[in-house]
């Protein structure tokens, strides 16, 4: 990321449903302070929240890196969870393997990854069974 203006790094704690979502809330505040276009702020924070919650719910936590560049914002969410067996299937609206416990809190619509896709200019998912998952989400300032 050669033309980065600012890089933010967060730890995403495992199985902590109380503080879950803090990294994306923090990014939202920072972007607002920086005067980023509100539409872009919304896209970035919703995409990041969905990815962050997936790391908490499906993968025992992980880390987030947000690179704010001159023409785009790139969010990288990495975990060392179980991995995604079939990414095409996971991308389908309504597909979810969420547990009953998190469903009772309102998660598990199977809309998280489709939401990220919809809100971003590019979404790249790398995943290996038993190793983990890495999402790279880019949102352009001009989008």
């Amino acid at each position, binding site marked *: 990321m050669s033309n980065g203006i600012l890089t933010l790094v967060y730890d995403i704690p495992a199985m902590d*449903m*109380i503080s*879950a*979502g803090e990294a*994306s*809330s923090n990014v*939202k505040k920072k972007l607002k302070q920086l005067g980023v276009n509100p539409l872009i702020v*919304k896209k970035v*924070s*919703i995409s990041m*929240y*969905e990815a962050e*919650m997936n790391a908490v719910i499906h993968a025992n936590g992980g880390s987030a890196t947000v690179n704010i560049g001159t023409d785009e914002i790139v969010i990288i969410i990495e975990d060392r969870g179980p991995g995604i067996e079939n990414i095409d299937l996971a991308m389908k609206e309504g597909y979810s393997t969420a547990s009953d416990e998190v469903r009772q*809190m*309102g*998660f*598990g*619509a*199977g*809309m*998280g990854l*489709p*939401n990220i896709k*919809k809100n971003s200019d590019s979404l790249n998912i790398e995943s290996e069974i038993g190793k983990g998952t890495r999402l790279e989400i880019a949102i352009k300032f001009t989008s």
Partner: protein
Amino acid sequence: MDVKMIADKLNMKVLAGKKGLGMKVEDIYACDLLSWVMARAEKASAWITIHSHVNIVAVALLAELSCIIVSEGVKVESNTLERADMEGIPVLGTTMKTHRTCIEIHNLIKREQKK
């Protein structure tokens, strides 16, 4: 119309987030699937849900909603109220059913528009 008006006219309890009572309400959204809310709710909506977990505060902020209305008499967890106070997003409580809450707010909005 603002959040305070909904609370006053429909006799709802303001459970938290008093700072945000002046926020404008332009639409209504009722859904209990969080990702669905983030995908579909129009901003400046009053959001009606039966969830009470702290994540509803994050969702309301991300989707830029005006308030959270916890319907059907569901009791709201204390850390949810603390977070809502911190963020200044109103949480209202009502014993009305979700659909009834929608109807009543809809009528209020219509009445206001006629004025």
